């Protein structure tokens, strides 16, 4: 067999979940402790790389975005506007590269949630799921957050909102409170009484963290449904080079992909028409591809080249190894 074919077969037989777990650990260290090695990937990363983590290896794009939105309208077309544009284009470039796989493989908050899920699984408590109609309503929250995180800073500069609303989403994001813990920095677990807005924002932040911890324990990838970054990504995810495609005619709708999907997207199993199957909450962790017994039903493509496919042979190899 040609070497390419043997390589393809080796990849299709491999257990991508184990690979992803190790990759996540690597990405976690890179993003949380990258600063110690003077690594700074970019300040407009399409994933959570929390600016509150002192020695981080990169910065989440929402942080500069909120700062840049804090600008009078007339400045947008001036020199400073260029800064906004370059920031966005860097974000877009990085997004196009890995599409939503940033969430599945690299996002540190996602990694934390996966660790909590593993803890729950070992304890032996079952995970929860949202009923269908609730799921449809809940996953719209992320767009509300996205609009707010753009409008509020914009309000500071143009509508005279107080500066305490500076980076509103970051104040309520659970990353701000949880990720610094990994570099022993408890400074974010506080309520800031310096102004009413600050009290409200940091209070809400701690509330969200409380809900996050228990939610992540009860439901897999609990926060990813609400995360504005995934909303922002989905707007441009069509342009991504990394794509997840489904051949509806091969699908027996056995629902395995839906059951292993951490985020719980129903359309992955039921939608047999659309070819590009990346839905708004998908984090491209490719667990569905490894759980699909049909030959080449789900394919991961990078720039048109199929790099990981669901194969019958690979499927049964993984089931054997499950032990």
């Amino acid at each position, binding site marked *: 067999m040609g070497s390419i074919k043997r390589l393809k077969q080796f990849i299709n037989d491999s257990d991508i979940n184990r690979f992803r777990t190790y990759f996540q650990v690597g990405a976690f260290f890179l993003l949380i402790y990258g600063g110690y090695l003077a690594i700074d990937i970019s300040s407009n990363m399409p994933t959570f790389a929390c600016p509150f983590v002192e020695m981080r290896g990169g910065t989440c794009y929402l942080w500069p975005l909120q700062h840049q939105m804090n600008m009078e309208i007339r400045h947008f077309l001036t020199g400073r506007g260029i800064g906004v544009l370059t920031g966005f284009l860097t974000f877009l470039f990085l997004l196009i590269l890995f599409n939503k796989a940033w969430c599945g493989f690299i996002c540190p908050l996602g990694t934390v949630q996966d660790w909590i899920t593993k803890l729950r699984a070992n304890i032996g*408590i079952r995970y929860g799921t949202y009923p269908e109609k609730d799921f449809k309503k809940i996953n719209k929250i992320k767009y509300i957050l996205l609009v707010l995180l753009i409008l509020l800073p914009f309000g500071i500069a143009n509508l005279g909102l107080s500066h305490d609303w500076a980076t509103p989403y970051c104040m309520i994001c659970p990353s701000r409170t949880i990720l610094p813990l990994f570099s022993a920095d408890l400074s974010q677990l506080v309520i800031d009484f310096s102004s009413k807005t600050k009290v409200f924002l940091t209070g809400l932040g701690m509330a969200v963290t409380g809900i996050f911890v228990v939610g992540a324990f009860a439901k897999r990838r609990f926060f990813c449904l609400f995360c504005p970054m995934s909303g922002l990504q989905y707007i441009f995810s069509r342009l991504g080079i990394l794509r997840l495609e489904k051949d509806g005619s*091969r699908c027996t709708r*056995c629902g395995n992909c839906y059951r292993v999907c951490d985020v719980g997207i129903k359309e992955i199993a039921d939608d047999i028409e659309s070819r590009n199957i990346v839905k708004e909450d998908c984090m491209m962790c490719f667990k569905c591809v490894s*759980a699909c017994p049909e030959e080449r039903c789900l394919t991961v493509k990078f720039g048109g080249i199929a790099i990981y496919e669901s194969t019958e042979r690979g499927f049964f190899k993984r089931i054997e190894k499950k032990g």
Partner: protein
Amino acid sequence: MEIERIKKSTLNHLSMEAGEILKRVEEDFPDNPESMKYFYDLLRKVYCYRERPSDGSITIGTMCLQVPEELIYASGAVPLRLCSGAYSFERIGTGPMPARSCSLVKATVGMLRLVPDFYRDSLKALIIPTTCDQKKKAGEVIREMGINVYFLELPSRKDTEDGRAYWYYSVKKLVDVMGEITGRRLGKKALFNAIRLLNRAREEFRRFYQLRGSVPPPIYGKDAIIVTNAFYFDEIGRWIESLSRLNKELYNRINKKEQVSQRHAPRILLTGSPSIFPNLKIPLLIEETGGVIVADDLCSSTRLLYDPVVIDETASLDILLGAVADRYLRPCTCPFFIDNTDKKRRLLQMVRDFVIEGVVYQAFSGCYLFEMESKSVAKALESEGIPMLYVETDYSPEDTGQLSTRVEAFLESIKQRRRGLHI
């Protein structure tokens, strides 16, 4: 006393019928794979001499593939598929059942009614899923015969969330019922092992399913039906070994370009009502007149063993149960479900995968489910330009004459179409 006489004659009829079918299966086809012998002997033992291989553990009868066998294995019992294809049993079954009802159900009722010791020696319970109405109502008739029947309720829709919730709930109830029947609480470890055991069987069957569909076909369709029917009775470990032996032999045949029947035998797909040994009337008819069934969509063979169970987390029993329940509900293309569009899609996909030239749709007369669906399946196949022969028959050999003419005409029309012969 009269029951005794009927029982003895029925058993004789059964052995004759099974023996005759097996003879046709073995002798009329010269190029059977050597490792099929194991399966022929097994069926001969079960049907002609009634020695069913059982290690004495509790037997739980099932009347349809919708009953999760993992639960039965996990509770230490052995599942036994009781659908029967014997015409001799059908003749007795016509008593308590209406004349126009499905032959399969009549045969099963006949078997259970008159011949208690055929299976009833260790049959603790019979689980009847409420799929088609005839099996449901036959369940009441069987219960009156003193067999412990349990009805496993199924939703009539499989793609809505309520339907699935309803199904999980009834599977959980089944777990409690299994607890009472076998006296053993269903453990997570036991269920996990049962799942892996059956998955291995499915893996082996999947390889057989692919090998069987290759061009040119290395094995007849009737052998595939015999292999899957042997799965009902055989101890699962031995069945897997013998099937893997068969697979190796088929693999060698394909490499050596050996094939069954003549060179351009029309490649047929059999779908519709399940043909269960010894009712191989249609398959044998097709393959004796020159066609080869390279794939089938019957719930007695392919759909019984096609879909594996996927386990993502083994956190709690609920999750494993959910995985098992999902496997038996979602991929099922039984016409019993409303909006059974999956069946047509799967058929078209099989046609593309295995280069099918003609589809034979068999419906047992009286089984209105398959009869009603045949129209829409015909339309779907026609849109793809695939001819379909709709055959409505039952277990009686009376209409063999006409059927053989129709089957032969169908195969000729395929050959004619293929050669583009417009004389």
